[in-house]
Protein backbone atom coordinates (compact mmCIF):
# COMPACT_ATOMS: atom_id res chain seq x y z
CA UNK A 1 0.00 0.00 0.00
CA UNK A 2 2.87 2.33 0.74
CA UNK A 3 6.48 2.49 -0.35
CA UNK A 4 7.63 4.68 2.53
CA UNK A 5 10.71 3.30 4.31
CA UNK A 6 9.99 1.25 7.41
CA UNK A 7 12.40 1.07 10.29
CA UNK A 8 12.17 0.50 13.98
CA UNK A 9 9.01 -1.52 14.12
CA UNK A 10 10.29 -3.07 17.33
CA UNK A 11 10.21 0.37 19.00
CA UNK A 12 6.51 0.62 18.24
CA UNK A 13 5.92 -2.90 19.58
CA UNK A 14 7.94 -2.15 22.71
CA UNK A 15 6.03 1.06 23.37
CA UNK A 16 2.77 -0.92 23.24
CA UNK A 17 4.24 -3.52 25.59
CA UNK A 18 5.14 -0.80 28.11
CA UNK A 19 1.62 0.62 27.71
CA UNK A 20 0.17 -2.81 28.56
CA UNK A 21 2.38 -2.99 31.64
CA UNK A 22 1.33 0.48 32.77
CA UNK A 23 -2.31 -0.51 32.28
CA UNK A 24 -1.86 -3.32 34.79
CA UNK A 25 0.35 -1.74 37.46
CA UNK A 26 -1.52 -1.50 40.76
CA UNK A 27 -2.39 2.04 41.83
CA UNK A 28 -4.10 3.49 44.90
CA UNK A 29 -7.86 3.67 44.49
CA UNK A 30 -8.03 7.45 44.25
CA UNK A 31 -5.57 7.50 41.34
CA UNK A 32 -6.90 4.33 39.79
CA UNK A 33 -10.10 6.06 38.73
CA UNK A 34 -8.10 8.46 36.61
CA UNK A 35 -5.70 5.86 35.25
CA UNK A 36 -5.27 6.85 31.60
CA UNK A 37 -5.80 4.31 28.90
CA UNK A 38 -2.11 4.12 28.00
CA UNK A 39 -2.63 1.70 25.16
CA UNK A 40 -5.09 4.01 23.43
CA UNK A 41 -2.79 7.00 23.93
CA UNK A 42 0.24 5.20 22.50
CA UNK A 43 -1.94 4.17 19.57
CA UNK A 44 -3.01 7.76 19.00
CA UNK A 45 0.60 8.93 19.16
CA UNK A 46 1.83 6.48 16.53
CA UNK A 47 -1.29 7.08 14.45
CA UNK A 48 -0.40 10.76 14.39
CA UNK A 49 3.34 10.43 13.95
CA UNK A 50 3.37 7.55 11.46
CA UNK A 51 -0.11 7.39 9.93
CA UNK A 52 1.15 5.19 7.07
CA UNK A 53 2.25 2.50 9.53
CA UNK A 54 -0.17 2.53 12.42
CA UNK A 55 -3.78 2.57 11.36
CA UNK A 56 -7.10 0.89 11.87
CA UNK A 57 -5.76 -2.65 11.59
CA UNK A 58 -3.07 -2.11 14.24
CA UNK A 59 -5.64 -0.42 16.47
CA UNK A 60 -7.96 -3.40 16.15
CA UNK A 61 -5.22 -5.92 16.90
CA UNK A 62 -3.96 -4.00 19.92
CA UNK A 63 -7.53 -3.67 21.14
CA UNK A 64 -8.01 -7.42 20.86
CA UNK A 65 -4.94 -7.99 23.04
CA UNK A 66 -6.30 -5.46 25.52
CA UNK A 67 -9.54 -7.45 25.63
CA UNK A 68 -7.62 -10.58 26.55
CA UNK A 69 -5.52 -8.75 29.12
CA UNK A 70 -8.54 -7.20 30.75
CA UNK A 71 -10.77 -10.20 30.48
CA UNK A 72 -13.30 -8.19 28.48
CA UNK A 73 -15.45 -9.46 25.65
CA UNK A 74 -13.21 -10.33 22.68
CA UNK A 75 -13.64 -7.44 20.29
CA UNK A 76 -14.86 -4.81 22.73
CA UNK A 77 -11.69 -2.73 22.94
CA UNK A 78 -10.80 -3.85 19.43
CA UNK A 79 -13.85 -2.04 18.08
CA UNK A 80 -13.23 1.06 20.19
CA UNK A 81 -9.54 1.30 19.30
CA UNK A 82 -10.22 0.71 15.60
CA UNK A 83 -12.58 3.68 15.77
CA UNK A 84 -9.97 5.75 17.61
CA UNK A 85 -7.33 4.83 15.02
CA UNK A 86 -9.72 5.82 12.24
CA UNK A 87 -10.48 9.19 13.84
CA UNK A 88 -6.77 9.77 14.41
CA UNK A 89 -6.11 8.98 10.76
CA UNK A 90 -8.72 11.50 9.69
CA UNK A 91 -7.63 14.33 11.99
CA UNK A 92 -3.88 13.98 12.58
CA UNK A 93 -3.01 16.82 10.20
CA UNK A 94 -5.01 19.23 12.30
CA UNK A 95 -3.88 17.88 15.66
CA UNK A 96 -0.15 17.45 15.27
CA UNK A 97 0.62 21.02 14.19
CA UNK A 98 -0.29 22.52 17.57
CA UNK A 99 1.77 22.30 20.79
CA UNK A 100 1.24 19.24 23.01
CA UNK A 101 -0.89 21.00 25.64
CA UNK A 102 -3.33 22.06 22.94
CA UNK A 103 -3.29 18.60 21.42
CA UNK A 104 -4.42 17.33 24.80
CA UNK A 105 -7.93 18.67 24.20
CA UNK A 106 -8.28 16.77 20.93
CA UNK A 107 -6.91 13.70 22.70
CA UNK A 108 -9.60 14.12 25.36
CA UNK A 109 -12.26 13.89 22.67
CA UNK A 110 -10.68 10.79 21.12
CA UNK A 111 -10.38 9.10 24.51
CA UNK A 112 -13.98 10.00 25.37
CA UNK A 113 -15.10 8.34 22.15
CA UNK A 114 -13.19 5.21 23.16
CA UNK A 115 -14.66 5.14 26.69
CA UNK A 116 -18.18 5.68 25.44
CA UNK A 117 -17.86 2.86 22.88
CA UNK A 118 -16.39 0.44 25.42
CA UNK A 119 -19.05 1.19 28.01
CA UNK A 120 -21.80 1.18 25.46
CA UNK A 121 -20.87 -2.42 24.63
CA UNK A 122 -20.63 -3.23 28.36
CA UNK A 123 -24.11 -1.81 28.73
CA UNK A 124 -25.42 -4.00 25.93
CA UNK A 125 -24.17 -7.16 27.65
CA UNK A 126 -25.63 -6.15 31.02
CA UNK A 127 -23.00 -4.02 32.75
CA UNK A 128 -24.25 -0.46 32.45
CA UNK A 129 -21.89 2.01 34.17
CA UNK A 130 -23.26 3.16 37.50
CA UNK A 131 -22.08 6.76 37.45
CA UNK A 132 -20.13 9.26 35.40
CA UNK A 133 -16.78 8.22 36.83
CA UNK A 134 -16.22 5.94 33.88
CA UNK A 135 -15.22 8.98 31.85
CA UNK A 136 -12.47 9.90 34.34
CA UNK A 137 -9.70 7.91 32.55
CA UNK A 138 -10.12 10.21 29.55
CA UNK A 139 -9.44 13.22 31.78
CA UNK A 140 -6.39 11.47 33.23
CA UNK A 141 -5.27 10.75 29.69
CA UNK A 142 -5.63 14.40 28.73
CA UNK A 143 -3.47 15.48 31.68
CA UNK A 144 -0.77 12.91 30.87
CA UNK A 145 -0.74 13.49 27.11
CA UNK A 146 1.93 16.26 26.90
CA UNK A 147 4.34 14.08 28.90
CA UNK A 148 3.66 10.99 26.82
CA UNK A 149 3.96 12.99 23.61
CA UNK A 150 7.36 14.41 24.52
CA UNK A 151 8.70 11.03 25.64
CA UNK A 152 7.49 9.15 22.59
CA UNK A 153 8.66 11.89 20.24
CA UNK A 154 12.17 11.73 21.67
CA UNK A 155 12.11 7.94 21.49
CA UNK A 156 10.97 8.09 17.88
CA UNK A 157 13.70 10.55 16.94
CA UNK A 158 16.41 8.70 18.83
CA UNK A 159 15.67 5.37 17.21
CA UNK A 160 14.72 7.00 13.90
CA UNK A 161 11.45 5.18 13.57
CA UNK A 162 9.89 5.98 10.26
Amino acid at each position, binding site marked *: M*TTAPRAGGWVIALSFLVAFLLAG*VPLPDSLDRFRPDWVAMVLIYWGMALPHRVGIGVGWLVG*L*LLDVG*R*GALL*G*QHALALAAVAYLTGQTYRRIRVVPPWQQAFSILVLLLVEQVLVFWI*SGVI*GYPPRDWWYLAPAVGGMVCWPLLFVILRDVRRYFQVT
Partner: protein
Amino acid sequence: MFAVNPSAILRLGLWMALSIVTMTVDHRYHYLDGVRDVLATAFYPLHYLVRLPTDTRNWLTENLATRGALLEENARLREKQIFLNAQLQKLTTLEAENRRLRSLLESAVNTPERVLIAEMLAVDFDPYRHYILLNRGRRHGVYVGQPALDQHGIIGQIVRADPFTSTAILITDSNHALPIQINRTGVRTLALGTGNFQELELPHIPNNEDVKVGDLLVTSGLGGRFPRGYPVGTVTRVEFDPGSPFARIIAKPVAQLDRIREVMLLEQGATESEPAAPAAPAAPQQP
Protein backbone atom coordinates in the same frame (compact mmCIF):
# COMPACT_ATOMS: atom_id res chain seq x y z
CA MET B 1 0.12 10.97 0.91
CA PHE B 2 -3.43 9.98 1.64
CA ALA B 3 -4.95 13.42 1.22
CA VAL B 4 -8.35 11.93 0.61
CA ASN B 5 -8.82 8.36 1.66
CA PRO B 6 -12.25 6.99 0.90
CA SER B 7 -11.04 3.49 1.65
CA ALA B 8 -10.44 4.35 5.34
CA ILE B 9 -14.12 4.40 6.19
CA LEU B 10 -14.54 1.13 4.35
CA ARG B 11 -11.71 -0.47 6.28
CA LEU B 12 -13.13 0.88 9.53
CA GLY B 13 -16.46 -0.68 8.64
CA LEU B 14 -14.83 -4.03 7.95
CA TRP B 15 -12.85 -4.07 11.20
CA MET B 16 -15.90 -3.00 13.18
CA ALA B 17 -18.00 -5.70 11.58
CA LEU B 18 -15.29 -8.19 12.48
CA SER B 19 -15.30 -7.06 16.11
CA ILE B 20 -19.06 -7.32 16.27
CA VAL B 21 -18.78 -10.88 14.95
CA THR B 22 -16.08 -11.82 17.48
CA MET B 23 -18.03 -10.24 20.33
CA THR B 24 -21.21 -12.06 19.40
CA VAL B 25 -19.42 -15.36 19.00
CA ASP B 26 -17.54 -14.84 22.27
CA HIS B 27 -20.60 -13.78 24.22
CA ARG B 28 -23.13 -16.26 22.89
CA TYR B 29 -21.34 -19.33 21.63
CA HIS B 30 -17.88 -19.41 23.27
CA TYR B 31 -16.25 -20.67 20.07
CA LEU B 32 -13.32 -18.35 20.69
CA ASP B 33 -12.27 -19.87 24.00
CA GLY B 34 -9.32 -21.57 22.30
CA VAL B 35 -8.11 -18.28 20.85
CA ARG B 36 -8.49 -16.65 24.23
CA ASP B 37 -6.57 -19.49 25.86
CA VAL B 38 -3.62 -19.01 23.54
CA LEU B 39 -3.57 -15.23 23.95
CA ALA B 40 -4.05 -15.46 27.71
CA THR B 41 -1.07 -17.78 27.95
CA ALA B 42 0.95 -15.25 25.98
CA PHE B 43 -0.10 -12.65 28.54
CA TYR B 44 1.04 -14.74 31.46
CA PRO B 45 4.64 -13.39 31.56
CA LEU B 46 3.26 -9.87 31.35
CA HIS B 47 1.14 -10.39 34.45
CA TYR B 48 4.21 -11.61 36.30
CA LEU B 49 6.22 -8.64 35.12
CA VAL B 50 3.53 -6.32 36.49
CA ARG B 51 3.64 -8.12 39.82
CA LEU B 52 7.41 -8.05 40.01
CA PRO B 53 7.81 -4.76 41.96
CA THR B 54 5.23 -5.77 44.58
CA ASP B 55 6.66 -9.28 44.83
CA THR B 56 10.18 -7.95 45.19
CA ARG B 57 9.10 -5.61 47.97
CA ASN B 58 7.33 -8.42 49.81
CA TRP B 59 10.33 -10.68 49.38
CA LEU B 60 12.65 -7.98 50.69
CA THR B 61 10.51 -7.17 53.72
CA GLU B 62 10.29 -10.86 54.55
CA ASN B 63 14.01 -11.44 54.14
CA LEU B 64 15.21 -8.29 55.78
CA ALA B 65 12.88 -8.45 58.75
CA THR B 66 14.69 -8.23 62.05
CA ARG B 67 15.09 -11.25 64.28
CA GLY B 68 12.98 -9.57 66.95
CA ALA B 69 10.11 -8.96 64.57
CA LEU B 70 10.24 -12.54 63.36
CA LEU B 71 10.23 -13.91 66.89
CA GLU B 72 7.30 -11.71 67.76
CA GLU B 73 5.38 -12.81 64.70
CA ASN B 74 6.23 -16.41 65.44
CA ALA B 75 4.90 -16.12 68.98
CA ARG B 76 1.73 -14.47 67.73
CA LEU B 77 1.15 -17.17 65.14
CA ARG B 78 1.75 -19.93 67.68
CA GLU B 79 -0.77 -18.37 70.02
CA LYS B 80 -3.26 -18.18 67.20
CA GLN B 81 -2.63 -21.77 66.23
CA ILE B 82 -3.34 -22.97 69.76
CA PHE B 83 -6.55 -21.00 69.75
CA LEU B 84 -7.59 -22.38 66.36
CA ASN B 85 -6.64 -25.91 67.36
CA ALA B 86 -8.88 -25.66 70.39
CA GLN B 87 -11.73 -24.62 68.16
CA LEU B 88 -10.92 -27.37 65.70
CA GLN B 89 -11.20 -30.04 68.40
CA LYS B 90 -14.70 -28.90 69.10
CA LEU B 91 -15.40 -28.90 65.39
CA THR B 92 -14.25 -32.49 64.84
CA THR B 93 -16.57 -33.79 67.52
CA LEU B 94 -19.38 -31.68 66.13
CA GLU B 95 -18.69 -32.92 62.63
CA ALA B 96 -18.70 -36.52 63.77
CA GLU B 97 -21.92 -35.97 65.63
CA ASN B 98 -23.44 -34.24 62.64
CA ARG B 99 -22.46 -37.09 60.38
CA ARG B 100 -23.99 -39.60 62.77
CA LEU B 101 -27.20 -37.66 63.03
CA ARG B 102 -27.40 -37.27 59.30
CA SER B 103 -26.89 -40.97 58.77
CA LEU B 104 -29.64 -41.59 61.29
CA LEU B 105 -31.88 -39.34 59.24
CA GLU B 106 -30.67 -41.11 56.09
CA SER B 107 -29.90 -37.82 54.43
CA ALA B 108 -26.90 -37.00 52.30
CA VAL B 109 -23.62 -36.80 54.11
CA ASN B 110 -21.61 -33.64 53.70
CA THR B 111 -18.79 -34.42 51.35
CA PRO B 112 -15.41 -33.24 52.55
CA GLU B 113 -13.84 -30.57 50.38
CA ARG B 114 -10.31 -30.11 49.18
CA VAL B 115 -8.79 -26.69 49.01
CA LEU B 116 -6.53 -25.17 46.37
CA ILE B 117 -4.74 -21.96 47.26
CA ALA B 118 -4.42 -19.39 44.50
CA GLU B 119 -2.89 -15.96 44.52
CA MET B 120 -4.46 -12.97 42.92
CA LEU B 121 -2.38 -11.51 40.14
CA ALA B 122 -2.11 -7.80 40.76
CA VAL B 123 -3.91 -6.84 37.62
CA ASP B 124 -6.67 -4.30 37.60
CA PHE B 125 -9.64 -5.05 35.47
CA ASP B 126 -12.41 -2.81 34.44
CA PRO B 127 -13.42 -1.06 37.70
CA TYR B 128 -17.10 -1.63 36.97
CA ARG B 129 -16.90 -5.37 36.81
CA HIS B 130 -15.73 -7.14 39.91
CA TYR B 131 -13.52 -9.77 38.36
CA ILE B 132 -10.16 -10.92 39.64
CA LEU B 133 -7.43 -12.87 37.91
CA LEU B 134 -5.87 -15.79 39.77
CA ASN B 135 -2.56 -17.54 39.17
CA ARG B 136 -4.01 -21.04 39.04
CA GLY B 137 -5.65 -22.46 35.95
CA ARG B 138 -7.00 -25.61 34.36
CA ARG B 139 -3.59 -27.26 34.65
CA HIS B 140 -3.89 -26.99 38.43
CA GLY B 141 -7.41 -28.35 38.49
CA VAL B 142 -9.43 -25.16 38.49
CA TYR B 143 -12.82 -25.50 36.87
CA VAL B 144 -15.62 -23.13 35.97
CA GLY B 145 -18.10 -22.70 38.79
CA GLN B 146 -15.61 -23.47 41.53
CA PRO B 147 -16.37 -21.49 44.70
CA ALA B 148 -13.68 -19.13 45.99
CA LEU B 149 -13.17 -18.06 49.61
CA ASP B 150 -10.77 -16.02 51.64
CA GLN B 151 -10.08 -16.59 55.33
CA HIS B 152 -13.27 -14.76 56.32
CA GLY B 153 -15.86 -16.05 53.90
CA ILE B 154 -17.13 -16.49 50.37
CA ILE B 155 -15.67 -14.13 47.80
CA GLY B 156 -16.99 -15.47 44.52
CA GLN B 157 -16.73 -18.18 41.93
CA ILE B 158 -14.61 -19.04 38.91
CA VAL B 159 -16.12 -17.94 35.62
CA ARG B 160 -13.27 -18.74 33.29
CA ALA B 161 -10.42 -21.23 33.58
CA ASP B 162 -7.51 -20.70 31.20
CA PRO B 163 -4.59 -23.16 31.14
CA PHE B 164 -2.47 -21.22 33.66
CA THR B 165 -4.76 -18.52 35.02
CA SER B 166 -8.39 -18.23 35.89
CA THR B 167 -10.90 -15.45 36.34
CA ALA B 168 -13.29 -15.23 39.27
CA ILE B 169 -16.40 -13.11 39.60
CA LEU B 170 -16.85 -11.55 43.05
CA ILE B 171 -20.13 -11.74 44.91
CA THR B 172 -20.42 -7.95 44.74
CA ASP B 173 -20.43 -7.85 40.93
CA SER B 174 -23.73 -6.40 39.81
CA ASN B 175 -24.44 -9.54 37.79
CA HIS B 176 -23.90 -12.01 40.60
CA ALA B 177 -26.50 -13.64 42.83
CA LEU B 178 -25.66 -15.96 45.69
CA PRO B 179 -28.22 -18.18 47.45
CA ILE B 180 -27.98 -17.48 51.16
CA GLN B 181 -29.70 -18.08 54.41
CA ILE B 182 -29.90 -15.89 57.48
CA ASN B 183 -28.06 -17.90 60.09
CA ARG B 184 -30.22 -16.89 63.06
CA THR B 185 -33.62 -17.51 61.54
CA GLY B 186 -32.95 -19.74 58.55
CA VAL B 187 -34.76 -17.45 56.14
CA ARG B 188 -33.61 -18.18 52.60
CA THR B 189 -32.99 -15.50 50.01
CA LEU B 190 -30.39 -14.29 47.54
CA ALA B 191 -27.52 -11.89 48.04
CA LEU B 192 -27.25 -9.73 44.96
CA GLY B 193 -24.10 -7.84 44.09
CA THR B 194 -24.44 -4.09 43.81
CA GLY B 195 -21.18 -3.13 42.13
CA ASN B 196 -19.95 -1.75 45.47
CA PHE B 197 -17.37 -3.80 47.39
CA GLN B 198 -19.08 -3.08 50.71
CA GLU B 199 -22.68 -3.85 49.82
CA LEU B 200 -24.87 -6.82 49.05
CA GLU B 201 -28.58 -6.49 48.54
CA LEU B 202 -31.14 -8.96 49.87
CA PRO B 203 -34.29 -8.88 47.78
CA HIS B 204 -37.66 -10.52 48.36
CA ILE B 205 -37.74 -10.35 52.15
CA PRO B 206 -41.21 -9.35 53.34
CA ASN B 207 -41.65 -6.38 55.64
CA ASN B 208 -42.77 -8.53 58.53
CA GLU B 209 -39.77 -10.83 58.42
CA ASP B 210 -37.47 -11.03 61.43
CA VAL B 211 -34.20 -9.52 60.22
CA LYS B 212 -31.91 -7.49 62.45
CA VAL B 213 -28.78 -5.49 61.88
CA GLY B 214 -25.81 -7.74 62.62
CA ASP B 215 -27.42 -10.98 61.46
CA LEU B 216 -24.92 -13.34 59.85
CA LEU B 217 -25.62 -14.55 56.33
CA VAL B 218 -24.35 -17.98 55.31
CA THR B 219 -24.52 -19.84 52.02
CA SER B 220 -27.62 -21.99 51.79
CA GLY B 221 -26.17 -24.57 49.42
CA LEU B 222 -29.11 -24.24 47.07
CA GLY B 223 -28.22 -24.13 43.42
CA GLY B 224 -25.41 -26.60 43.96
CA ARG B 225 -22.56 -24.22 43.27
CA PHE B 226 -21.59 -23.23 46.79
CA PRO B 227 -21.36 -25.63 49.73
CA ARG B 228 -23.68 -24.68 52.54
CA GLY B 229 -22.79 -22.97 55.76
CA TYR B 230 -19.97 -20.67 54.71
CA PRO B 231 -20.21 -17.09 55.99
CA VAL B 232 -21.09 -14.48 53.40
CA GLY B 233 -21.86 -11.22 55.16
CA THR B 234 -23.55 -9.39 57.97
CA VAL B 235 -26.68 -7.27 57.72
CA THR B 236 -25.84 -3.61 58.06
CA ARG B 237 -29.08 -1.84 57.21
CA VAL B 238 -32.73 -2.81 57.40
CA GLU B 239 -35.33 -0.37 56.11
CA PHE B 240 -39.01 -1.13 56.28
CA ASP B 241 -40.96 0.92 53.83
CA PRO B 242 -44.69 0.50 54.38
CA GLY B 243 -45.28 1.49 50.76
CA SER B 244 -43.36 -1.39 49.24
CA PRO B 245 -44.03 -5.10 49.70
CA PHE B 246 -40.43 -5.98 50.54
CA ALA B 247 -37.96 -4.65 53.05
CA ARG B 248 -34.79 -3.02 51.82
CA ILE B 249 -31.93 -4.95 53.36
CA ILE B 250 -28.25 -4.24 52.81
CA ALA B 251 -25.44 -6.48 54.01
CA LYS B 252 -21.68 -6.13 54.08
CA PRO B 253 -19.54 -9.04 52.87
CA VAL B 254 -17.37 -10.58 55.59
CA ALA B 255 -14.60 -11.22 53.08
CA GLN B 256 -12.41 -8.21 52.42
CA LEU B 257 -13.12 -8.08 48.73
CA ASP B 258 -11.05 -5.02 47.99
CA ARG B 259 -7.94 -6.44 49.72
CA ILE B 260 -7.77 -9.94 48.32
CA ARG B 261 -4.34 -11.51 48.01
CA GLU B 262 -4.77 -15.20 48.55
CA VAL B 263 -7.86 -17.11 47.59
CA MET B 264 -8.95 -20.58 48.55
CA LEU B 265 -10.68 -22.55 45.83
CA LEU B 266 -12.91 -25.31 47.15
CA GLU B 267 -12.87 -28.55 45.28
CA GLN B 268 -16.11 -30.31 45.97
CA GLY B 269 -16.21 -34.09 45.65
CA ALA B 270 -19.86 -33.95 44.80
CA THR B 271 -22.43 -31.27 45.24
CA GLU B 272 -24.58 -31.71 48.28
CA SER B 273 -27.89 -33.18 47.44
CA GLU B 274 -30.52 -30.88 48.74
CA PRO B 275 -34.19 -30.87 47.91
CA ALA B 276 -34.97 -28.42 45.16
CA ALA B 277 -36.33 -25.18 46.47
CA PRO B 278 -37.59 -22.05 44.79
CA ALA B 279 -34.30 -20.20 44.68
CA ALA B 280 -32.31 -19.12 41.67
CA PRO B 281 -29.02 -20.90 40.96
CA ALA B 282 -25.79 -19.20 41.89
CA ALA B 283 -24.85 -18.62 38.30
CA PRO B 284 -24.47 -15.00 37.25
CA GLN B 285 -27.89 -13.73 36.33
CA GLN B 286 -29.21 -10.70 34.60
CA PRO B 287 -30.40 -8.07 37.05
